[in-house]
C-alpha cells in the first residue's frame, strides 16, 4: 500500500510574483520585501483588472434597475456571492452577507444576534489571543445587556489552554467568539474541537477568520461553525469588503443590523417589512465592485490551490523560524505547534519601532507595534513586537533578506 504523502504540486513563485505589479518596485533603493501580509495583502493583476473592467464596462447599481448595466452588475455581484459560498463550502449563497470587513461582520453578530437575546449574567466566551475587533464589540454588548465577558487563557507558547476552555464553558455561556488564527502570534486554534464542545452545551460559535482565510482552505459545514467572518483585503482582494457567513436558521431569527434601502420588502410609515436573506443585512448600496473583485481574488487563490499556498507558506515559516532562532537576543512570541506564517519577535534592548524603521530602509516592510492585540502584549509583558508575516508570493530569498536585515539592525544598535 502506498502511504507516501501526496506529491506537492509545483509552485512557481517567480511566476506568481509577476502577477503582483506592486512587488516589482524598489524602496529606499532596495527591492521591496513585503512581509506585512497579516495587516493586508497585495493585489494580483486579476483583481486590479477586474476592478477596472467592471467600472469601465459593467458598472451600475445592483438589485434595482431594469436596464442592462444594472442587470449585468447584479449578476456579477451575486456571482461573487456564489464564489464566496463555494470557497467556504456554505450550504446556501444567502448565508453569505457582504460587510465592510471582519470588524463589521463581528459587530453585526454582536448587535443583531446578541443584543436582543443576552441578559444580565449571561457569559460571552472569547480567548486571550483575540484581536481588538473580537474583543471590543463584545465589551460593548456586555455594557448594553449586562452580559459578562470570559476569557480563555493562553500559555507561554501562545497555545490556548483547552482544559481552561472546558472549565469556562458554563450553563451561562451564550456565545463563543474565537480567532481561527492569531494575528499577533500566528497560533492556529483547534476550532473544530472548540465548536464541537461548545455545541455539546448548545453554545453557538463565531469564528474570526480574518487571519486564517488567506492561509488555508475553510469549510464552514465541516467546521459546523455558526458564524464565520473574514475580510477581502487579507485574501488578496480589495479593502472595504468583507464577509459574514451565518447559518440560515440563525440569520433568519436575527433582526436587521442597519436600516435603509435594499433591506426592505415593503415600506409604509406605519410598518416596514424586511427583505429576505441576505439582503436583510445589506442596507444601502453595497461596495459593488469590491465584492465582484473579491470574487476575482477567490478565483485567483483557487487557481493556485489553498493546499499549495499553505504548503509554500509553511515551508517559508519553518525556514524563517529556524534562521531567526539562531540570532542572539531574538525572542520569538508564538511557538504553538499549529501555526500560520507569522513571525512575531523582539530583539534584546531594541524596540520594535526602531527595528521597523531600519528594516524599512533596507526595503523590508514589517509591522511593529501591538498588532491591535494589547492583551496579548500585556500577557507577555512587552509593549510591542516586530512581526514579519508571509503570503503566497514571498520567497526564501526574502526570508534571507529579513534575517540579514535583523543582523544589520543589531549592528546599527551595537
Amino acid at each position: 500500500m502506498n502511504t507516501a504523502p501526496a506529491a506537492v504540486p509545483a509552485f512557481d513563485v517567480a511566476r506568481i510574483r509577476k502577477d503582483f505589479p506592486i512587488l516589482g518596485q524598489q524602496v529606499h533603493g532596495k527591492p521591496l520585501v513585503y512581509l506585512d501580509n497579516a495587516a493586508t495583502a497585495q493585489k494580483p493583476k486579476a483583481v486590479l483588472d477586474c476592478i477596472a473592467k467592471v467600472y469601465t464596462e459593467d458598472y451600475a447599481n445592483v438589485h434595482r434597475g431594469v436596464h442592462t448595466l444594472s442587470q449585468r452588475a447584479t449578476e456579477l455581484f451575486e456571482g461573487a456571492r456564489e464564489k464566496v459560498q463555494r470557497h467556504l463550502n456554505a450550504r446556501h449563497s444567502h448565508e453569505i452577507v457582504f460587510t465592510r470587513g471582519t470588524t463589521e461582520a463581528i459587530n453585526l453578530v454582536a448587535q443583531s444576534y446578541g443584543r436582543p437575546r443576552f441578559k444580565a449574567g449571561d457569559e460571552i466566551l472569547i480567548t486571550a489571543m483575540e484581536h481588538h475587533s473580537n474583543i471590543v464589540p463584545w465589551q460593548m454588548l456586555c455594557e448594553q445587556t449586562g452580559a459578562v465577558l470570559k476569557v480563555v487563557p493562553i500559555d507561554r507558547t501562545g497555545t490556548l489552554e483547552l482544559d481552561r476552555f472546558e472549565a469556562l464553558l458554563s450553563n451561562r455561556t451564550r456565545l463563543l467568539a474565537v480567532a481561527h488564527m492569531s494575528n499577533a502570534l500566528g497560533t492556529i486554534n483547534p476550532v473544530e474541537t472548540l465548536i464541537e464542545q461548545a455545541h455539546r452545551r448548545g453554545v453557538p460559535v463565531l469564528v474570526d477568520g480574518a487571519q486564517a482565510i488567506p492561509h488555508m482552505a475553510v469549510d464552514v459545514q465541516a467546521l459546523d461553525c455558526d458564524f464565520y467572518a473574514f475580510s477581502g483585503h487579507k485574501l488578496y482582494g480589495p479593502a472595504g469588503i468583507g464577509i459574514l457567513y451565518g447559518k440560515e436558521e440563525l440569520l433568519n431569527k436575527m433582526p436587521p443590523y442597519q436600516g435603509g434601502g435594499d433591506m426592505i420588502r415593503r415600506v409604509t410609515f406605519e410598518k416596514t417589512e424586511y427583505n429576505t436573506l441576505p439582503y436583510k443585512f445589506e442596507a444601502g448600496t453595497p461596495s459593488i465592485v469590491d465584492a465582484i473583485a473579491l470574487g476575482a481574488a477567490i478565483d485567483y487563490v483557487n487557481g493556485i490551490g489553498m493546499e499549495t499556498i499553505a504548503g509554500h507558506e509553511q515551508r517559508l515559516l519553518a525556514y524563517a523560524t529556524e534562521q531567526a532562532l539562531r540570532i542572539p537576543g531574538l525572542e520569538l512570541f508564538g511557538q504553538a505547534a499549529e501555526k500560520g506564517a507569522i513571525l512575531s519577535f523582539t530583539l534584546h534592548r531594541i524596540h520594535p519601532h526602531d527595528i521597523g524603521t531600519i528594516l524599512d530602509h533596507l526595503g523590508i516592510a514589517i509591522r511593529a507595534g501591538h498588532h491591535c492585540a494589547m492583551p496579548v502584549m500585556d500577557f507577555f509583558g512587552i509593549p510591542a513586537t516586530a512581526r514579519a508575516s508571509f503570503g503566497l508570493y514571498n520567497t526564501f530569498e526574502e526570508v534571507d533578506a529579513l534575517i540579514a536585515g535583523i543582523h544589520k539592525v543589531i549592528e546599527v544598535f551595537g
Partner: protein
Amino acid sequence: MLDQIRDLYQEVVFDHNRNPRNFRVMEDANRTVEGFNPLCGDRITLYVKIDDAGVIRDVSFQGSGCAISTASASLMTEIVRNMHESEAHALFETFHRIATGKDDAVNLEELGKLAVLAGVRAYPARVKCATLAWHSLEAALENQETTVTTE
C-alpha cells in the same frame, strides 16, 4: 549603506537611549503625568518639580519606548531643567513645528541640543515618538493629572 538613517539615529540618540538621563522615580515631584502613545503602546511617566515662580527645578522619567522616544525624553529632562515653564513651552512649540515639518525654513540653531532629533521630520510615523515626552511635559505644566496621549 545606511547613511540616510543616521540622520534619524544620530550618535547622541544612541547614547541617550542606552544611558537615559534622569531615568528615575521622583518621590517629591509636585506634578506626575502618564504619557501614552496608543498607536505603539509606548508609555512614560514624567515627574516634574516646579517652584512657585514657575521654574522647573527637576524633571525625571520612567517607562519604555523606542530609541527615539527614550532619547527625546532623556534630552528633554536635561534641557528644561531650570527653565521657566514659559521658556519650556516655547521650545516645545519650536520643536513641534520643526518635527512635524510645518516649517520649511528650518533653523536648527533655535533647537540647540534638540537639533539631533530634527531628523524625525523625514519619518512621519515616528514624529509622535519624539513628541511623547513633550506632550507629557505640557500636560504637567498645565497641571493636568491625567493620562495624556499622542492621539
